[in-house]
């Protein structure tokens, strides 16, 4: 197999030494089947062991290896080097997040949001396991299944200028996950989650840029989840206004 040379420009930021990030360029020999993550691994193993980045599964499942590649949020394990043939590939840490080191961003804010929306099935009263599972039809599953494919890679946050301007915004993935549970027929936590997704920095902060759904590597449509949550909230508000006692 022939070997081409890829030129990769990677953001370096070593907080103990650097006052701000800078680019470092590397030349990486590559084969047709190599992705940007392979190039980063090559750099770390063969050229510069100090390069720091996150990765795990290298097959688009774990959601660890997100970066801005040529300005676009992508999984480095799903971006083939040959797609950039003949030009320098710029790899930067995911936009909108604080940078800890090189390509590693601080995920703390997203983790807090994830917990905040309570991503588990809430029951008013749990039934004992002996009584069997909570059953669901195929149609009921279909209502939320695409939103359960989220791998928490945070690319949608890197693509969202609203989040870039206001990090308090609940954001795409957390709302998509909240909607996934709101639409789950087995869940009874609507009243718990509604105030969270409808607070000031919740869904109403979204002004429909739509890029979150474009960059999602798993085909989830967070923009759709956010708009559907808006509709649910608005209908609920009208219902409780018209029927204060039994609106919901």
């Amino acid at each position: 197999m022939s070997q081409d040379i890829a030129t990769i420009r990677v953001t370096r930021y070593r907080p103990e030494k650097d006052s701000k990030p800078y680019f470092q360029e590397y030349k990486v020999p590559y084969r047709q089947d190599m992705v940007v993550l392979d190039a980063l691994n090559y750099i770390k193993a063969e050229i510069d062991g100090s390069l720091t980045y996150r990765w795990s599964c290298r097959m688009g499942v774990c959601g660890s290896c997100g970066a801005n590649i040529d300005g676009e949020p992508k999984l480095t394990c799903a971006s083939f080097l040959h797609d950039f043939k003949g030009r320098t590939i710029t790899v930067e840490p995911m936009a909108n997040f604080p940078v800890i080191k090189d390509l590693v961003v601080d995920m703390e804010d997203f983790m807090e949001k994830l917990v905040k929306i309570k991503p588990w099935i809430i029951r008013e009263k749990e039934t004992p396991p002996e009584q069997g599972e909570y059953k669901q039809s195929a149609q009921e599953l279909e209502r939320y299944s695409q939103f359960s494919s989220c791998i928490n890679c945070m690319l949608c946050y890197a693509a969202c200028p609203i989040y870039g301007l206001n990090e308090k915004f609940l954001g795409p993935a957390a709302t998509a996950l909240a909607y996934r549970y709101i639409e789950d027929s087995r869940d009874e936590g609507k009243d718990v989650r509604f105030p969270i997704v409808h607070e000031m920095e919740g869904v109403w902060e979204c002004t429909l840029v739509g890029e979150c759904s474009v960059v999602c590597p798993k085909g989830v449509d967070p923009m759709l989840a956010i708009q559907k949550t808006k509709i649910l909230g608005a209908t609920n508000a009208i219902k409780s206004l018209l029927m204060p006692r039994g609106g919901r």
Partner: protein
Amino acid sequence: MGDTSRYPEHRRKLSPRWWTANRHYAMYMVREWTSLFVAVYSLIFIYGLSLWATGSRANFLNFLKNPAIVGFSLVALVFIMYHAVTWFYLLGAISPIKIGRSKTKPWQALVLNLILLVVVSYLAIWLLVLR
């Protein structure tokens, strides 16, 4: 997440030119900016209706025939159509209608709503101008 406070994190600010990064951002920004035209057109129309309410229909029609208003309305029409197309498409994506086992596609909502827009617009023109 461990002790990250020992060294400073690098915080980046969104560049004022963020929307030039790709086509989707630019299209979004065009929609945001052109909302101004939609708003101004609404004000013009409300003012026109107030002329009719306080005077006569001729006042209202003469006001709308002003070349500056006609020019502005034509520009606003282009932008309003951009808003209509994007919003109608989105409407179809957010609230598909179930027919039997299948769901309507966003483009079907777009076409149906555009037809409705033409019909409603014609009715409005008929009521306000032609009648």
